């Protein structure tokens, strides 16, 4: 089976936010919940780089480890998902996530969290594929249709890559070899404990 990953080629990313709105569009994500976002490092200085970031679906995911109710699970495609039925909205995954991925609707007591929401790698949740319940809770399930996450599919400059880790790593390597520069596979070291040798 594949080991699904994201890779943002920051030398291609232009902070156009297509990934962010594609995600909103595909899953009808409400205002205030940002499953994906773009961060610009060294903003306004020559050589600034933007990186599109969401849940990286880590190897040995910290969120899953700290969850007090074990609502996370890893799919056969190595996608880290969670069950909103089990989630109690405690926020621990947010404290543990290196990428700020978990999001909480402000519906709980004292304006605090509801059930956690995050990037599903466009692959729904524990409910049956393409069921109404899955759609309502997690959004659309593209992976089960043989499609990849829409953020990556719609990326304006093909900076954001999704797919099997080995394949996207080789695409990135090939690009770097061709053009002669690369600012790195952002987040890979932290998420997957590996880097792409260039």
């Amino acid at each position: 089976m594949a080991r699904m990953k994201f890779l943002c080629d920051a030398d291609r990313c232009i902070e156009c936010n297509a990934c962010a709105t594609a995600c909103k569009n595909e899953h009808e994500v409400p205002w205030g919940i940002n499953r994906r976002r773009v961060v610009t490092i060294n903003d306004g200085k020559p050589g600034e780089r933007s990186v599109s970031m969401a849940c990286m679906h880590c190897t040995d995911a910290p969120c899953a480890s700290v969850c007090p109710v074990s609502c996370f699970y890893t799919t056969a495609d190595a996608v880290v998902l969670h069950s909103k039925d089990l989630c109690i909205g405690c926020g621990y995954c947010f404290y543990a996530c290196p990428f700020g991925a978990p999001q909480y609707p402000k519906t709980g007591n004292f304006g605090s969290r509801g059930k956690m929401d995050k990037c599903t790698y466009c692959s729904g949740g524990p409910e049956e594929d393409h069921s109404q319940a899955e759609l309502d809770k997690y959004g659309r399930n593209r992976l089960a249709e043989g499609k990849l996450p829409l953020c990556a599919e719609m990326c304006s400059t093909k900076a954001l890559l999704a797919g099997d880790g080995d394949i996207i790593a080789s695409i990135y390597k090939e690009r770097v070899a061709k053009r002669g520069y690369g600012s790195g596979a952002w987040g890979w070291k932290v998420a997957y404990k590996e880097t792409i040798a260039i």
Partner: protein
Amino acid sequence: MTSMLSRLFQTAFFALALLILGAALPAAAQQPTSVNPTAQSVKEAQLLEALKPGEPISGRASIPNKDAANLIQAGRDWRAYNQETLPRLGMLALLGTFVALVLFYLIRGKIRIDAGSSSQKILRFAAFERFVHWLTATSFIMLAVTGANVTFGKSVLLPVVGPEAFSAWASFAKIIHNYVGFAFMAGVGFTFLIWVKDNIPDRTDIRWFLAGGGLLSKGKHPPAKRFNGGQKIVFWSVVLGGAMMSLSGWHLLFPTVEGMAEAQWHATIHGTIAFIMTALIIAHIYIGSVGMEGAIDAMASGEVDLNWAKEHHSIWVKEEQERKSGSRISGAAQPAE
């Protein structure tokens, strides 16, 4: 003289050089003759290397959420503490206290009133004081149980009851924890207000500690005021620990206004202090109930046996009796011991 002249000369020379350079500088500083943003791009490897512990790699994100601008941060360290250190610490604190108390009980047994029960009672805690105590106590216990569930529930309870039932309980426990937290905060606040005047540490406490609180051997009772040294420790632990629990808990209740690093810090404080306090409170419960004859009355009816009071709070009893007889005004002329 010559040296002074030469120094003056040197200074003038440098000033002139600076002036010339300075005149040339603005144009050069304004625009270098080549700027290659591709070659100058930031690289992740360099940023990770330069990263200080606890600091994120951050930039600018257009959404207002301040946290969104943090790209990569060290979540794994906190995870290690939360998943490994804290449970161990918790187990150690809870089991350690339990074992110590069992041992203590086996060796020392229940602490009796040496003089036996008298027929006389003395009012030790007024109704409001008892209310505050029990408010704090019940809320603490509820918080401790629901809180411990966060750390131990999934390894202890979940395998037994299954994920759905456990989540339902955990969800309920979270709500309890969030609401009862406010009762606890109130309890801690009142505790401080009503008892702080009797809990200022003084020399009596040193003597009390030197005598081991009279707990280690029968028939020996170091003098104590209204609260002895041990009780003062409990008081300050509850007040200071409770304040820290409240403060960190408050932040955890409203996570959306906090950064992740702060949230981690608050969660760490909250969990660590919780276990230390729980351990302490277990000891407090022991000594206040099965560990000591007559102690429970203080918080039950509020009236304690006079002999018990004389043995454990001799100075306080004296003061109380003097105050009652009206010969002295309590606290007005206390000897500076």
